[in-house]
């Protein structure tokens, strides 16, 4: 395979490959359907809408409980967003679910014009964000959505990394007056928050999950558990590293991040997004706003001018350094600098 020369094909982690059957068994982090079904028991205005994806995002769990308030629009995400805006203007609280590229990018203008500009309380469940869908390729990846969403006035942008965080995010944002973009992963994410004290995930506040003076790592989505794992390895070599989950991207808690980065003098941002426009950009803005431009900043993410290689998600995370090993390697470079 001469055409593969120079491209390192990662070994299969744990000897297992990524497949749809495995994904179906491990979809426990897509809890939005169940959580919303419970919230809708109390709130008659909640409706859930999807675009021929109810099994991909498990909003079918909502349909099973409240079929009269579940709407499937078929494959028409732009229509779905505008339609939800119309429903919200009459007093409903619509939650719309679709693959992140097809709502966060394809329907980006509808989100701006029909949700954010008139301030409609529509919530977007943008799932399989980043490169989570692996070898289905760039058409199905969303590595630009944070850049778009966080530059839209009136938007709220939240990235819960697991099931516990997803439920907290849904409940804590329920009464916000404008639209919310929930950036969700691949539905089989490593649990982080279920082992932490209840209430650790608080909307609008960066979550400090580990404290250390030598380096600050800011993570988001799938990189949160990877960063914690990397920090554990580094502690074995007596490096003390802070790990912060910057789950609320807009409004962004730059104050907390600047405080930790200012103390350590070194900041590593790891995210499943292009290195331009996402959490790393938000951190850089926060550093400058707090007069900390001298903090050494390194970024892990999709390279600025690359679209993803083909590969299973776990292989891609390893290739782009978004897994624990990649974060550890980059952290050691930064610690040595």
């Amino acid at each position: 395979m001469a055409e593969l020369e120079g491209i390192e094909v990662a070994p299969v982690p744990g000897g297992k490959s990524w497949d749809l059957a495995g994904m179906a068994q491990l979809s426990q982090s897509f809890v939005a359907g169940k959580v919303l079904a419970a919230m809708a028991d109390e709130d008659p205005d909640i409706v859930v809408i999807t675009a021929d994806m109810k099994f991909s995002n498990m909003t079918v769990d909502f349909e099973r409980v409240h079929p009269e308030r579940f709407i499937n629009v078929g494959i028409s995400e732009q229509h779905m967003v505008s339609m939800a805006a119309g429903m919200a203007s009459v007093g409903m609280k619509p939650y719309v679910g679709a693959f992140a590229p097809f709502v966060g990018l394809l329907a980006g203008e509808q989100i701006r014009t029909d949700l954010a500009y008139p301030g409609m309380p529509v919530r977007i469940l943008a799932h399989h964000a980043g490169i989570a869908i692996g070898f289905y390729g760039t058409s199905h990846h969303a590595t630009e959505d944070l850049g778009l969403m966080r530059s839209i006035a009136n938007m709220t942008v939240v990235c819960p990394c697991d099931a516990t965080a997803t439920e907290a995010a849904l409940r804590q944002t329920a009464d916000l007056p404008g639209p919310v973009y929930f950036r969700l992963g691949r539905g089989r994410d490593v649990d982080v928050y279920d082992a932490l004290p209840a209430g650790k995930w608080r909307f609008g506040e960066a979550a400090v999950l580990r404290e250390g003076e030598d380096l600050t790592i800011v993570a988001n989505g799938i990189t949160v558990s990877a960063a914690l794992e990397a920090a554990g390895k580094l502690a074995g070599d007596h490096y003390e590293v802070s790990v912060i989950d910057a789950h609320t991207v807009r409004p962004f808690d730059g104050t907390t991040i600047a405080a930790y980065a200012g103390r350590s003098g070194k900041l590593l941002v790891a995210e499943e997004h292009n290195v331009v426009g996402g959490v790393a950009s938000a951190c850089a803005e926060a550093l400058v706003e707090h007069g900390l431009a001298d903090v050494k900043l390194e970024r892990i993410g999709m390279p600025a001018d690359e679209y993803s290689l083909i590969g299973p998600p776990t292989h891609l995370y390893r290739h782009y350094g978004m897994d624990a090993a990649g974060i550890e390697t980059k952290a050691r470079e930064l610690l040595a600098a």
Partner: protein
Amino acid sequence: MEASQVQEVRDRAGVVRRETIRLIEVAGNGHYSSVFSCAEIMGALYSGVMRLAEDPEWPERDRLILSKGHVAIGLYPLLAERGYFPSEWLDSYTRLGSPLGDHPDMRRIPGVDFSSGSLGHGLSVGVGMAQAARLRGYDETRIWVLLGDQELNEGQVWEAAGSASHFGLGNLVAIVDANQMGLDGMTEETMPVEPIGGRFEAFGWEVVEIDGHDPEAILAAAAALPPAASGKPQCIVARTVKGKGVSYMELSRTWHIGYLDPDDAAAAVKEIDQRG
């Protein structure tokens, strides 16, 4: 139908055209001809066709979405006439900080049911409002969506059209202001949309075609709509002429956006009054 109602529509269409000319003098630039083609339609909607109340926020009111949002200048005088905001607001049209711009903003203008301007969105918003009205038990509420003919090129219109019939939204009425033109020229040359009625029928809608400048025809079409609680979305294809009312603007590409100096504006108003 009462003769007085027909006359009301004519009078309001005259108000729409004259005020459009006056306000564009304030702005220095604006959409004349797109408004002129739907002057009778907008006049009729606010002459007893839509179910409205003194309170522009009445939950069970009918709602109008100007999917062709660039005709908002024609709507503003009708909303002011209803007392939804002071008529002095009209004089501020397009000035820095005015609530009234070329496209309507629901957050700043009482009586505007949804903000618009990006073509192709309005029918989707209408589908959502119609569904929400059903869920809330507003059984007599209708949702009216005014679309342009060239706008029907937008694919989202047909996503909405298909879902409206699938969801059985008899409380949704699409009015196509088929004024035969877009920005670049004749619709059928730029990118055809005919047969408009046939397309909506194929998407499961009930369709009626009328002369969109005939107040009696508009009122008759509205009166003939089945109850809002019925199960089929309704489309009124209004055959109109872009620029109708000022002879040199009629089907003229150059008057989509323009400016009349005060003398020409006075002459245009005179012609509107004579033909009114």
